């Protein structure tokens, strides 16, 4: 009879464990409050990333089209995989001195790993981590960006 008792208890315990599992999934089927789905494209207006979210590298410009980048290439050196290329030029200041400034600040978003090392390395705080994350394009070349706006200058007093 021991065999039979074993047999029945196996069946009983198995069925019980299965029912417990079904109860749990059934609970979630009937409790819609637990649903946490974030409706992305519809909530775009209200969607806010975390403060420190690293979406892309940006270079903030003031209203007078000035940035803080002096072209010291600290970020370029700090970058582990050559995401940033800075092409410098020499501006002639009103006093007649030559001054190094950036010509183009090329940023390869397609290479960037958003590791924050360039922002850490920047002595003037010229670049920051931006919040944008919608970087899907049809052409890969669109991901290579120039961060300084055309005609922008270095902010006065940033060395």
């Amino acid at each position: 009879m021991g065999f039979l008792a074993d047999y029945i208890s196996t069946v009983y315990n198995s069925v019980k464990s299965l029912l417990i599992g079904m109860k749990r999934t059934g609970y979630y089927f009937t409790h819609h409050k637990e649903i946490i789905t974030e409706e992305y494209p519809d909530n775009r207006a209200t969607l806010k990333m975390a403060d420190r979210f690293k979406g892309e590298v940006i270079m903030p410009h003031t209203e007078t089209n000035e940035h803080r980048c002096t072209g010291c290439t600290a970020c370029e050196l700090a970058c582990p995989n050559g995401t940033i290329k800075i092409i410098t030029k020499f501006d002639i200041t009103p006093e007649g001195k030559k001054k190094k400034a950036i010509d183009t600040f090329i940023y390869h978003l397609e290479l960037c790993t958003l590791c924050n090392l360039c922002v850490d390395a920047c002595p003037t705080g010229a670049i920051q981590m931006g919040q944008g994350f919608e970087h899907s394009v049809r052409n890969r070349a669109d991901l290579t960006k120039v961060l300084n706006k055309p005609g922008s200058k270095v902010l006065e007093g940033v060395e």
Partner: protein
Amino acid sequence: MCNVAYGAYAIAKNFQIWDLNIGVLYVSAVSSFAVIGILMAGWSSNNKYSLLGAMRSGAQIVSYELSAGLSILTIVILTGSLKVSDIIQSQETGWWLFKGHIPALIAFVIYVIAITAETNRAPFDMAEAESELTAGFHTEYSGMRFAFFFLSEYINIFIACGIGATLFLGGWMPFHIGHWEAFNHIMDFIPSSVWFLGKVFFLIFVIMWFRWTFPRLRIDQLLNLEWKYLLPISLFNLLLMTVVAIMGWYF
């Protein structure tokens, strides 16, 4: 495309197009065609996953055919007819699930398990076994042919649940409770097709519920379950039902 012919056959039953006097036998015969479709599909696609899936499902479906058949038999014993209309008529006073006592309940549970396995649904989806055999027997099929596999699977579920609803839950018979005339009356207002579809959908829901909840069995466990548990239990249950039927212990 074997599954096409099978799909067509199987549709034939549940809408009472032809009230065969061996209806139940006919349906169970036709629905076992599924295995041929799957076996052929898997074997002919020259793919190892498909081959494995087909072989598995061959062993699986034929095995579970038995307990499904045996649980159908218990109801046949009670009604004494294979004709679908007779079976439904016999449940006018109450569904067999409730009238038939414990044996009917056991038969019902076994039937639900067996049809889950027969239709290759999780936790018995050995033929597909996505994490093992990528997509099993229909790995090599794409587009419309793949769609027909899916369609046939769901038609198959519908058929199997339809039989279940007919046999155990009284087909289109509304739900009646003893002598609550008022209650019974309200129930009668609901159209019979709604009753039938509602019951079928309930069974389909249960099968889907299984799918959410349970992990997949391994092939040897699957066959163990059938041959060591379901088959002996359903054989025993059949005898029990015979006794119940002969003694008239049902309502």
